[in-house]
């Protein structure tokens, strides 16, 4: 296997270069566009060298967009705030609900436990709109339409199966004997759970939380269906922004950059756990 010829190495190098260009180009290009004025963006052929400007970002952050026709209000920072709030709260709720359940599923094989675990798993694979469309009608009746509580509840569809199945695997990896020894010392199950199981499964819980955050942040369809403008996260907000602001391509690019940076940064930080999380614990990285 080791005798690779020079030709092969060159071909491999070319192939890898093409792969990197294809996958990185859009991100780099949008990043560059976000530092350009509309005039340089609209120039043909596209410019690789330009004078960078922070105007797009200042417009987004101050929420005021100066155009020839006057000043436009941009609600993008609000979308960004919504994204942060919805993702963080959903993950927190999910951890609160999911970690004890994962522990129960891992430690006690009780009647119906597998059924519940698999039902939750199957939600991950069911079409989102199947649940969302009737839910819009229910939410209107319940007064949950366009509320953060309603959104956080449906976000459990994304976060809960992920947390349950990943954390369950981590709990199962802890030898039952360790917990047993601690309980013989006269400690209650809760003390055992808190002092032994939780710390040992800690890294797994953190990883599952990070992944759930990324998936919640990247979700589009839930908020598109259930939230109106003031509650929308960036994924939906950016789409509305494109239609409302028309030709402000620099600002749109800056908005996209701000929207994807948190997940990219978290992914880099958590990349060790990504394989496991993405395959719901089926493949270890």
């Amino acid at each position: 296997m080791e005798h690779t010829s020079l030709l092969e190495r060159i071909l491999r190098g070319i192939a890898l270069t093409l792969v990197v260009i294809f996958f990185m180009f859009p991100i780099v290009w949008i990043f560059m566009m976000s530092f350009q004025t509309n005039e340089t963006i609209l120039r043909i052929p596209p410019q690789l060298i330009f004078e960078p400007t922070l105007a797009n970002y200042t417009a987004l952050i101050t929420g005021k967009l100066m155009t020839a026709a006057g000043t436009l209000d941009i609600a993008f920072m609000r979308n960004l705030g919504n994204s942060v709030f919805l993702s963080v709260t959903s993950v927190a709720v999910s951890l609160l609900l999911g970690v004890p359940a994962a522990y129960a599923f891992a430690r006690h094989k009780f009647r119906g436990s597998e059924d519940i675990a698999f039902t939750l798993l199957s939600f991950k694979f069911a079409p989102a709109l199947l649940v969302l469309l009737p839910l819009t009608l229910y939410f209107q009746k319940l007064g949950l339409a366009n509320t953060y509580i309603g959104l956080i509840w449906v976000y459990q569809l994304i976060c809960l199966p992920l947390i349950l199945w990943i954390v369950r695997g981590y709990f199962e990896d802890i030898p039952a004997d360790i917990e047993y020894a601690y309980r013989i010392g006269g400690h209650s199950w809760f003390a055992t759970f808190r002092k032994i199981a939780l710390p040992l499964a800690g890294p797994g819980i953190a990883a599952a939380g990070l992944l759930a955050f990324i998936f919640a942040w990247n979700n589009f369809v839930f908020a598109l269906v259930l939230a109106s403008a003031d509650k929308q996260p960036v994924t939906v907000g950016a789409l509305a922004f494109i239609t409302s602001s028309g030709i402000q391509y620099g600002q749109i690019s800056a908005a996209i950059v701000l929207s994807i940076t948190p997940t990219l940064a978290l992914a880099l930080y958590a990349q060790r756990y990504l394989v496991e999380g993405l395959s719901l614990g089926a493949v270890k990285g």
Partner: protein
Amino acid sequence: MTAVVSQRPKPSGFRISKRVLPYVLSLPALLVCIGILIPFLTSVVYSFQRYRLSQPWARQFNWGDNYISFFTDPKFWNTLEVSLLYAGTTVVLELLLGLAIALLLQKRSTLNNFISIMLLMPLMTAPALAALMWKLMTNPGFGVLSYLASLIGLQDFRWASSPSTALFTVVLVDIWVYTPFIMILLLAGLRSLPTQPFEAAALDGVPRSFVFFRITLPMLTPYILTATLFRLLDSIQQFDIIYAMTQGGPGDTLTVFQVEAYLNFFQSTNVGRSAALMIILWAITYFLSNIFIKNWLRLRERARGQA
């Protein structure tokens, strides 16, 4: 494990009966479960009704009419065809590309690890935002890809706004986002394979094509199957990329299941038809997810055995 638990001495202090405990712990998750099952059952009911939001007075059960009318409805066949075409094309192309990249990066080296981490970035980009990025790049006025297309002689290449290239464009975005998913799973699979068979083959001077087709591929099959089914389940339900890019258009070129159901619900307010579409999609995904879960469980057992 259960045996161990039942032998334990009685702990002191406040306690909940050990028979009840697991139920108590999983009750909140169970409640969320039920909260989601109710709208699901509602969907089933809706799918058997004539139900338009614009004509609430005419709401009544028509039993299978929504489903039966699909047989003679060219729009439904278009939805089915586009969905299958989209799912089939994206999964096959992503599998081939993902496998090729995984093989290129197989050897552990600083550069390879760095590239594989870089390639995760598209996957971590929200698909809806990825679609917007590509929309900007394929803008006919200033889009860099439109410019590049014109350089290679494709004047006035319309990307997602022309019916003949719309599917190609959204498939391209899907490939950009999700190929790294297959790549990263297969790379983990490749790197976890035992080395002995490869060493033996190298000693015997077995040709590399033989090694690939007779050793690598068969041993990688569970990973390939899991990754493929995972993607297939996702891809047949694709909504974000298509909706953000074209809203199902131009015309009804890209009205895949979820997009069509969404438009039926919110534009033509035909709840009955929308629900019936979702039930059919659910049946397809249910069938696929059963195959998937069997495979996934086997792989999960293996991964946990190694841990």
